[in-house]
Structures are given as structure tokens and as C-alpha cells.
């Protein structure tokens, strides 16, 4: 081969690699063996919280193509941490982040740091997410979720690094906060806030699910949910007084983070964020901008569970239409995805905001009632234990009882009822049904993924999935069972349906009891330590609703997880270190690397200023210059002591009526000029008074009178 040809071939190879998806090899970092006696006394608990609100420009993941680019934020996104430690030196860290999907990559990266600093490795760390569909993407473990998780494509290492550093620092802060604690487990049924969104699929289960304790008058899809709000209340001992004070809680409740309409374009903690704030403010009513109390509100078996949003809160999706752009007599027709009208979008977004508020308050009130009730059952005894395994799904598919090659069903592409995509119901030429709908199994599909209707499978069989899809799907499942006192918790990297979750709980409970553990209940913690999409029962899978189409490793997945959880429940241990085989390196294909998170701010960022303030209708507006163009809401990653901006009543008291962590206040980026960020504040809570907008300790606007709406 001539030198010139070799150079050309090498250049071509470099180009191919550069254009291809990014591949990462992520080692496992397990916890070292605990050192007994490093923590004095019995049970200890520590809390921490960190702000993870990224700058605008990132994609809001979870709604696929309908996931918008973030233009700003409403409720800030936090990662909340609870670390529990016993006298034997065992530590468990629970993280619940306001993020759309969990990520094995994030879990492994954080564990690599906390294993060194705090003795908390992958086997003692749970990173779960609330599943808000108004959170950022670009940090997931599989290319499909980075490249197609929203309308903004790409894997961004800066997002991974930023989240890793912030979450790891919060875990470290929670360890530093460890203090003697008392805890109490309890649960309460919350009816009417959630519903089964794929009822026909659920009703295929054998035996058919029944509603045992549901209040009369509820529709069947509301009766068949698992209404359990499980809570671990935690009180900490104050060092000054020595008294135990309520400090926070950890909860599991099954509910999708889909209060926002898919067309929402603001980062937001959704219903879960309101529930968290409701209890935190109850515990710490005088806590200022960020309460000291911390409430981790994790998701359970929510795969087929939607919040009770009303139909008018779901916006129409873009439609395929000619672009009316200079269509002269000889110009070629251009096509576009035409967005719904601004009026329609405003209306459905408003309906979604109303629903979020109502549901958030309802569930939040139940959380408060449960928290208060648990005050009488506090104890300083809580046995801690854990079991952890990493399943290599493609390599061990046969042994695990799942399909060797993952596949997406067409029902995945059309979206769930919470967020239908623009191709839902599409007919070829308006006449021919290609199966772009839920509940359309293909009985002719053979093999392991039988019944799953795939894209263009009528013409090409499984080839499109093999060539374009399966390689972008995850290959591993990190599974964990925690023992927290008399509860075992199965942490699953996916979205488990109600019935699948119920079966897993029964399997775990029986197995744990069989192994001699004195446990009274088993819980499912979904969206934890990775993401594998949905996990349905084999019966639900055959219906090929959204969840079945998204059960990527086939109908054996739920049974596989049930077996894995049962095996782990029987092997929960404490005081030891796990063999390296529990966390082998992960070989990940994370997608196309892009600079999604803004990087550049001005070298010199001037003091923030308020440009103008005015009222229109029921809304107060302000234009502000606030920080650098690439700044996160909190630049250091810690929690801000005060808001970036607040609205005060124009009187002598200057009472604060809103700040930039309020469901009625929206911060929307107007532009990035000269490396600076120019924002628009809109607050829809005016009540006919005179207000000022204030940047704490920096600037205050002139007073502006707002008419009674």
C-alpha cells in the first residue's frame, strides 16, 4: 500500500470514528468494607440538597420528539440526599434527583467519587429520579435516550460531569451531616391523584387485577392503581439542644412526572417538586428560600400510572404540512412540522399548570398527614443492608430468560397517553394503517419478541430494528435490594407497571422472609441506577400498549427482575464488601457527542440589573440581565441561600410574594448577548396590588401597579 493511500485510509477511519457514536468504558467502584465504630451510637442520618438546574438550551427529555428545548425554568431542579449509617459503619446513600431518567453512567461516575471520599460505592448508592419530563437529558447511558430523548439531540460530557460533581458533593455533604437519628416507617393510601393509563393492557393480567380498598365512585382506572405512599420519617438530634427534631423524609409513590404538557418549554420539578416543597415547608415553615428540611419523593412502580391530568392539559402535536414560505408560482413545496397555534399552546399549558397545582397539593397534604402521624412511632433502630448485582443483558440473555436483542415497538414511537407524538395514528395516504398506535400487536412477529409490532416490519422484518435501533438501547441492568429496617426495597432501573411491581414485591418479600429477615413489607423503587425503559408483565406485553412496546428485552423482563430481586433479597448483607463481579465495567454506547450545555459566558459579568417592569392582565413581567450566558441557576452547584430574583409588595414590609422557585413564576431566557443572559420574568400571581421586582442585595425596580385580574 502506498503511503498516500494509507494516509487516506487512516483519515477515512478517523472521520468514521469521529462521526460515530461515543463509546465509554465505565468501571465499577464498590464500597470498601465498613469500619465498625467510625460512627458513634446507633442510627445516624444526614441530609443534603444540591441545585442541578442547568442553563436553557438543553433538551427536556422523556417525551421523545415532543420534548422541547428548555427556554428557562419554573421550579428549580434539586438532587436531595439522605445518608443512613448504623453503628457497624454501614452506610447507604439515597439520592432522589429532579431528573427525567436515571442513568447507570451517572450512578457509576458518582460512585467512583463517593467510594473514595465517603466509603459509599455503587453497591451502597441509589440514584433515583422523580421522572419529571421537564428535566434535562444528554447524560444517559444509551445513545437512543441521548439522541432521541427530546428534540435536542446529543450526549454532552459537560452535563455528565456537572451532575456527577454536584450529586457527589451532596452525598459528601450528607455524610458530613450525619447525626443521631430516629426514624419511623409508615404508609398511607392516596386515591384519586393517579390512574392507570393503559387499562386494557392491565386487564390482560391473569388473575385480573381487582381494586380491594378503593373508595366507591372512582372510575376503574383510578381504582386499580397502587395508592401506597410509603414514607420513612427521619428526625435528627440537634447538637445544641440534644433534642430530636423533624428533619426530613424518604418516600416512594408511583406516579409519572408528566403533569406538564409535552409542549412545556421550561425546566420544572413538576408535581413531585410541589409535593417535596409542601412537606419541606411544613417541617420548616421559617426556612427561607430553601428549607433546611429535605424530602426525597421517589417514584415507585409507575410504569402505567399517570397523574390525574385533565384531557385539556395535553396540547395538540405538530402536524405535517407544507411550509407557507414564499410559495411562489415556480417554487418547490417545502415541508414542516407545523406547531399548534400559540393560543392553543397557552391554553393547554395553563390547564396543565392548574392540574399540577391541584395534584401536588393533594399528594402533598397526604404526605404531611403521614409525616405527622409517624411522629408517634419513631425509633433509633433501623437495620441496614444491601445486595447489588449488574446484569449483562445481551451476553446472558438466555440464562436470564429475556430476548438477546432489544427491540422497540411502534407503540413506543407513538407515545403514551401522557404525551402522544406527532406520528400517533398516522395512516399512509390517509388510508393505510401502518400500526402507528397503541394496542396494535402483530401476531405474525415470530421469535422472542413475538407480538411486538416494529417499524416497517411488514416489509423488512426485524432488519430496521437490527440496523438502526437495537444498538442504541441499553445493555445492562444494575439491580439492588436495600434493607431499611423491616422493609426491603427493590431498586429497579426502569419503569415497572403496577402489576409487575406487585408481583416483584411478593417475590422479594417471600424470599427475604425465607432467608430469615424479619421484614413486613417490600417496596419497588423505580428509575434507579440506570434506565431500561418499561417492565411489563408477559400478559401486558402481548397487548403492545406503550409500555409493552417499550419493554425492550421482551416478555420475560418482569419475571427476570422478579427472580433477580428475590435472589438479592435473600442475600442482603451488611458489614462486608462485595466481589468485583457485582459491578463489572460497563461498555456503553452513549450517542453522538455535542455541546448542548452552553459553554461561554462573558469574561466579566456585570452586576445584575432590572431593565423594565410592567403588568399585563393577571401577569407581572420584568426584563432582567442576570448572569453569564452559560451560567447554571446556582453556579457553584450548592443550594442558593436566597433567590436570584423575587417579587415583593410595595409597602413598608416588602413582603416577598414570589421568587424564582414558584410554580406561578417563570424565568424565560430572552437572549444571550455579549456572553450575558437576558431574562424575562413572568409572575401570574398578581392580586391588584403594587409590586417591585428585586434582585436580592443588588437591585430593586420601581413600583408597578397591577390591576385586579
Amino acid at each position: 500500500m502506498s503511503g498516500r493511500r494509507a494516509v487516506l485510509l487512516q483519515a477515512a477511519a478517523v472521520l468514521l470514528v469521529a462521526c460515530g457514536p461515543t463509546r465509554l468504558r465505565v468501571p465499577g467502584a464498590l464500597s470498601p468494607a465498613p469500619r465498625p465504630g467510625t460512627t458513634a451510637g446507633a442510627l445516624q442520618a444526614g441530609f443534603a440538597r444540591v441545585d442541578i438546574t442547568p442553563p436553557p438550551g438543553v433538551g427536556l427529555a422523556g417525551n421523545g420528539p415532543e420534548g422541547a428545548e428548555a427556554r428557562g425554568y419554573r421550579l428549580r431542579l434539586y438532587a436531595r440526599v439522605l445518608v443512613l449509617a448504623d453503628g457497624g459503619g454501614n452506610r447507604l446513600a439515597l439520592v432522589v434527583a429532579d431528573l427525567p431518567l436515571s442513568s447507570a453512567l451517572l450512578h457509576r461516575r458518582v460512585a467512583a467519587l463517593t467510594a473514595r471520599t465517603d466509603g459509599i460505592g455503587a453497591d451502597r448508592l441509589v440514584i433515583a429520579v422523580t421522572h419529571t419530563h421537564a428535566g434535562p437529558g444528554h447524560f444517559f447511558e444509551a445513545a437512543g435516550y441521548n439522541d432521541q430523548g427530546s428534540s435536542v439531540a446529543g450526549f454532552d460530557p459537560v452535563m455528565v460531569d456537572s451532575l456527577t460533581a454536584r450529586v457527589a458533593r451532596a452525598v459528601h455533604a450528607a455524610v458530613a451531616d450525619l447525626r443521631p437519628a430516629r426514624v419511623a416507617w409508615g404508609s398511607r393510601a392516596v386515591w384519586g391523584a393517579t390512574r392507570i393509563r393503559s387499562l386494557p393492557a392491565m386487564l390482560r393480567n391473569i388473575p385480573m387485577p381487582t381494586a380491594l380498598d378503593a373508595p366507591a365512585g372512582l372510575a376503574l382506572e383510578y381504582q386499580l392503581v397502587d395508592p401506597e405512599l410509603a414514607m420513612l420519617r427521619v428526625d435528627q438530634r440537634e447538637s445544641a439542644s440534644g433534642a430530636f427534631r423533624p428533619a426530613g423524609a424518604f418516600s416512594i409513590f408511583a406516579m409519572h412526572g408528566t403533569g406538564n404538557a409535552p409542549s412545556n418549554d421550561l425546566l420544572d420539578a413538576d408535581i413531585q417538586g410541589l409535593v417535596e416543597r409542601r412537606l419541606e415547608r411544613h417541617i420548616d415553615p421559617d426556612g427561607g428560600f430553601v428549607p433546611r428540611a429535605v424530602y426525597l419523593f421517589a417514584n415507585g412502580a409507575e410504569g402505567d400510572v399517570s397523574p390525574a391530568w385533565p384531557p385539556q392539559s395535553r396540547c395538540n402535536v405538530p402536524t405535517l404540512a407544507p411550509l407557507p414560505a414564499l410559495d411562489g408560482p415556480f417554487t418547490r413545496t417545502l415541508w414542516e412540522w407545523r406547531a399548534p397555534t400559540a393560543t392553543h399552546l397557552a391554553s393547554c399549558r395553563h390547564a396543565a399548570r392548574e392540574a399540577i397545582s391541584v395534584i401536588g397539593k393533594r399528594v402533598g397534604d397526604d404526605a404531611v398527614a403521614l409525616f405527622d402521624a409517624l411522629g408517634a412511632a419513631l425509633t433509633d433502630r433501623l437495620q441496614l443492608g444491601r445486595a447489588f448485582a449488574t446484569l449483562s443483558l445481551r451476553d446472558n440473555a438466555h440464562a436470564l430468560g429475556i430476548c438477546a436483542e432489544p427491540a422497540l415497538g411502534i407503540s413506543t414511537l407513538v407515545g403514551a397517553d401522557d404525551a402522544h407524538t406527532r406520528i400517533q395514528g398516522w395512516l399512509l395516504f390517509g388510508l393505510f394503517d401502518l400500526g402507528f398506535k397503541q394496542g396494535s400487536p402483530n401476531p405474525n412477529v415470530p421469535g422472542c419478541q413475538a407480538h411486538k409490532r416494529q417499524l416497517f416490519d411488514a416489509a423488512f422484518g426485524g432488519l430496521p430494528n437490527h440496523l438502526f435501533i437495537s444498538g442504541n438501547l441499553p445493555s445492562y441492568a444494575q439491580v439492588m435490594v436495600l434493607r431499611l429496617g423491616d422493609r426491603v426495597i427493590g431498586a429497579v432501573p426502569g419503569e415497572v407497571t403496577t402489576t409487575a411491581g406487585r408481583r416483584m414485591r411478593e417475590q422479594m418479600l417471600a424470599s427475604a422472609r425465607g432467608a430469615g429477615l424479619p421484614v413486613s413489607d417490600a417496596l419497588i423503587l423505580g428509575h434507579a441506577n440506570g434506565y431500561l425503559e418499561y417492565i411489563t408483565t408477559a400478559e401486558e406485553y402481548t397487548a403492545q400498549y406503550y409500555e409493552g412496546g417499550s419493554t425492550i428485552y421482551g416478555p420475560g423482563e418482569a419475571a427476570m427482575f422478579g427472580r433477580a430481586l428475590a435472589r438479592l433479597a435473600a442475600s442482603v448483607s451488611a458489614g462486608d464488601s462485595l466481589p468485583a463481579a457485582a459491578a463489572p465495567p460497563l461498555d456503553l454506547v452513549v450517542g453522538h457527542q455535542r455541546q448542548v450545555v452552553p459553554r461561554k459566558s462573558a469574561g466579566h459579568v456585570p452586576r445584575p440589573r432590572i431593565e423594565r417592569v410592567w403588568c399585563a392582565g393577571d401577569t407581572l413581567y420584568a426584563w432582567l440581565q442576570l448572569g453569564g450566558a452559560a451560567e447554571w441557576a446556582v453556579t457553584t452547584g450548592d443550594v442558593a441561600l436566597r433567590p436570584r430574583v423575587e417579587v415583593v409588595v410595595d409597602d413598608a414590609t416588602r413582603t416577598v410574594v414570589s421568587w424564582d422557585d414558584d410554580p406561578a413564576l417563570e424565568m424565560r431566557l430572552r437572549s444571550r448577548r455579549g456572553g450575558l443572559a437576558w431574562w424575562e420574568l413572568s409572575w401570574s400571581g398578581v392580586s391588584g396590588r403594587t409590586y417591585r421586582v428585586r434582585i436580592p442585595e443588588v437591585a430593586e425596580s420601581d413600583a408597578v401597579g397591577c390591576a385586579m385580574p
Partner: protein
Amino acid sequence: MAAPPAAAQLSARTDVSAGGRYVWHGISRAAGLVAQPSLAVELRAHRLSLQSGAVLHYELDRVSSGELSETGAGGRHLGEEDLWGQASVDLGPTRLHAGLVRYVFRGDSGTGGVGSARNTTEVFASLSTTGRYLNPTLEAWWDVDRVRGAFLRASLDLPVLGWPFPPYAFVFVQTEMGLNLGQGPDPARPGELANFASRGITHVSLGLGTEVRAGRLSGIGVTTLAFGARSQLNADDATRVDGPGRTRDFVVWLWTGVTIVLGGAGRTGQ
């Protein structure tokens, strides 16, 4: 944003198309490699818009004797330039256009091309509507200069499927039918030119195309790439002409194009 939208929007669009054939009103004007750069501007205020533009028709390969060409044998240059203006009004999913086109031919009639003797002017009106699956357009053309007569064209654009993720891609089918109502020979006025041989259906065409929204231009516009194939069944003697002394009942050609839209119209679409 709370700020009110601008009262008027200015947009510009430029296209460069290339293909194996230049077909106008179903009549093949040139075969071989042809290119058609065009430029258009639009001023829009609410439902109303005014648009104007120009299209140039180049023949890029050397034309040999007996080939279908506007430039004439030996040519490799501009064969035609068209200037147009129109007014449009949007009524929900329906659009109405009315306008005027001036055709100027640059070929050499002495070598078989189309010369300035055929320069003419047409007025037109069109009605188009947008649906989820069907996007029909009905156009009426009236030559007011050298031919003096009407021609109708009905076309239908059907989206086959759109890729929902960026870069957005669209597959579509285009059908078209022409109907001559008065652009044929008029024995009463032998001095007038004719576009078609007889009254009635002139042609029926069917095409398949793909368009890829290549990228956004820093928030000020969009770029698209398109390519496709088109076929045409010729029903009139004039549409059958494929060069001096040659006729074809059925023709197929490939085409491609790049479009850049800047300004208001390019910012709105996904």
C-alpha cells in the same frame, strides 16, 4: 414573550434546483442537465403577503443539434428568465394567490432555441388548502400577451411520512394534471402563438421526493436539501415533443435542490 409580534415580517428565499429536464406547464422545454437558481422576497403583515421573485433557467451541458433546448444548438447558458409577483391571503388552512409572470427567452431561434419572439406574460390565481394528508392546489393561468388563453393545473401533495427528530426529513408524493382551455391554436387569430395542440388534458405527472431540513441558520432561517424523481404521461402533442422531430408519451427525470429561507417564514417551521 410578552412583547407583541412585529407588525410585518420580511423573508427571503433562494433555491438552486438541478434536474434532468425543465418542464413548464407539462411542456418539456429542455432536456439534459438544467439548473434553475431563483430568488424571492416576501413582506407579510398578518394574513396578507406580497411576494416577488425571479427564476433563471440554465442549460449546463452543451446542446447538440436535434436536442430539446431553449438555448439552441451549441448553447450552454441562460435560456429563460422569469420575473413574477403575487399577493397572497391566508384564510385558515386555505391560501389564495394572485399574480403575474413575465417570461423572457434568451435562446437563439436560428439554432433551434426559443428566442425573444416568444416572450410573453401570464396572470394567475391559485387556491390551495392544507390538510393532514391531502394538500390540493388548483391554479388558473391566463396568457395575456402572445398566446391569450387559459390553462388549468390541479396538483396534490401527499406527505408519506415525516421523521420527527432533527434533522427533520419528509417523504412526499406529488401528482399533477394539466388542462388546456384556450392556449391552443386559434384559427380566428393566426398571428397568436399556441402552447398546446388541442383542448383538454395536457399531461398527468407523478413524483416522489425526499426533503431533509439540513439545519437552522442561527435562528434566522432554515436550509433544506431535496431530491426526487418525477414521471409524466403526455397527452397533448405539445407535451409529447422531446426535440425536433421526436416525441415521447412518457418521460422520467431526476431532480435535486437546495433551499435557504431567511427571515420570518424560515423561523416559524420545525
